[in-house]
């Protein structure tokens, strides 16, 4: 599946004294199996952009196309093909058991009993929850990290071809954050599910994203392979973003030695550079 926003605009709080354009003439394509990160300062319109991509919120101007066909022109998006989890998705839990809550989406799609069961089990496994232990439990009795996992499973059970996630790790502890990001990458690799994550933690996006979109004041200001943008310190800082820690480190090494070091994106790369720096320091 390929979705495309064409010159899309969205006005926040329309018709009030405080209306602001949240998304302003954005064109963006997401193709099958892609892993895209959307970053930008608070209020840059990244959450609104994600909502527009889901088709749930119609754009105020421009249009959304799915596989080349405009959605507004009567073509409906195939049900369940796009999944979206808004910020703090655990706020939409409502069933008495974890199983029933995750089964909500497949039931709405009208799949059979067996298929429903298969999907719930697969979704719970994908978010790292033991189905026998958690399935019968009341979602409101779980910890916030577990609730987040249940909520994400509830969207995964749609088995969408495109998954949109708005800050899926916000408010979670570091171990849970890393685990969830790791599982998403795994899902994408195993099933080719295209994913778009909105976030502002560059270290996390460095792990997740293959392609990065940077938004500022409602517009897309950069859209390139993640490595290229995450290592562009000037660009990131101009748009109020912090470069990943490893990139900051490489820059410091460059400044200290006077010799240019390529920005590191992984800890392994950073470690190599530090080792080299220490050898030089020792031989000097």
């Amino acid at each position, binding site marked *: 599946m390929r979705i495309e926003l064409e010159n899309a605009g969205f006005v*926040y709080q329309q018709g009030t004294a405080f209306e602001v354009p949240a998304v302003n003439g954005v064109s963006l394509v997401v193709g099958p199996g892609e892993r895209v990160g959307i970053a930008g300062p608070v209020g840059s319109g990244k959450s609104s952009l994600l909502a527009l991509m889901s088709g749930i919120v119609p754009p105020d101007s421009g249009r959304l196309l799915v596989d080349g066909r405009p959605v507004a022109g009567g073509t409906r998006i195939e049900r369940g093909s796009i999944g979206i989890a*808004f910020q703090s998705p655990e706020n939409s839990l409502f069933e008495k058991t974890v199983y029933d809550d995750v089964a909500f989406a497949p039931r709405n799609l009208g799949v059979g009993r067996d298929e429903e069961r298969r999907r719930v089990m697969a979704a719970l496994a994908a978010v790292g929850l033991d189905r026998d232990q958690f399935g019968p439990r009341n979602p409101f009795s779980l910890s916030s990290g577990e609730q987040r996992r249940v909520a994400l499973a509830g969207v995964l059970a749609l088995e969408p071809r495109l998954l949109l996630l708005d800050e899926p790790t916000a408010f979670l502890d570091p171990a849970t954050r890393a685990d969830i990001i790791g599982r998403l990458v795994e899902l994408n690799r195993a099933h080719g599910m295209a994913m778009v994550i909105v976030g502002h933690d560059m270290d996390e996006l460095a792990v997740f994203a293959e392609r990065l979109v940077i938004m500022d004041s409602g517009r897309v200001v950069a859209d390139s392979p993640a490595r290229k943008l995450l290592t562009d310190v000037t660009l990131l800082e101009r748009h109020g973003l912090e470069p990943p820690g490893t990139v900051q480190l490489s820059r410091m090494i460059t400044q200290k030695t006077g010799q240019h070091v390529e920005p590191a994106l992984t800890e392994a790369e950073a470690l190599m550079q530090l080792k080299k720096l220490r050898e030089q320091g020792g031989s000097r």
Partner: protein
Amino acid sequence: MKLAGAVIGQYFPGASVVHLLDPRMKILAAFAYAVALFLVGGYPGLILMAAALAAAVAVARIPARWLLRAIKPIVFLAGFTFIFQLFLRGGEVLASIGPLDVYEEGVRHGAFLAARLVLLVLSSAVLTFTTAPVLLTDGFSRLLSPLGKLRLPAYELSLMMSIALRFIPTLLMELDRIIKAQKARGAEPGRGGLVRRARSVLPVMVPLFVLSFRHADELALAMESRCYRGGRGRTVRRRLKLRARDAVFMVIVAVTIAAALLV
């Protein structure tokens, strides 16, 4: 966000004289205006009342589309009132629709009732358009304060009202988000038979209740942490002060209403 926007975009910021008037006087004037609308006997009075409101709108520079938005919810009711009255007997027959005759008196009376309804809604809209919610609650709470002398908890009552006003927009925005989130999971609220429709409310209402209770709980903790002890020993910071313009305003209101009732 559209749903929330319709309800919370109630204040039209501005610095006109109408905006600056004491909220208590505006609340009293709106109340008097509503009562007078029901006492006014005929068209001359009604036209005078409409002119007075139009003057306030013009001074406050409220855009026409805001007024239209305000009466949108009652257009159907006003239209129905008008049509229902059309067939009242009296005066000349103006037209015949099938077996029904439309009388002059019916048109006259129907238009009167419909106009009265529209003016009623518009007058309260002008109050909320020109008064910041903060001042509106302040105004109400000062008007309620004589209750304190009757040993009713006047401060607590006005605080309750102010918190309700504070959280309505928040909850509406959250409601909007929950609806979208459940739609994203394939829910189709409001579709199907009665039972299905009733059941489809749960995925929206349960999360909304859970969130409301959490807000209430957290708000209580935050208030206690910030030394809330009820009205005991509390400073009243903003004292509303009546100014000359408020006196002039009330005189205008009194004269207009008296004239409308007498003509």
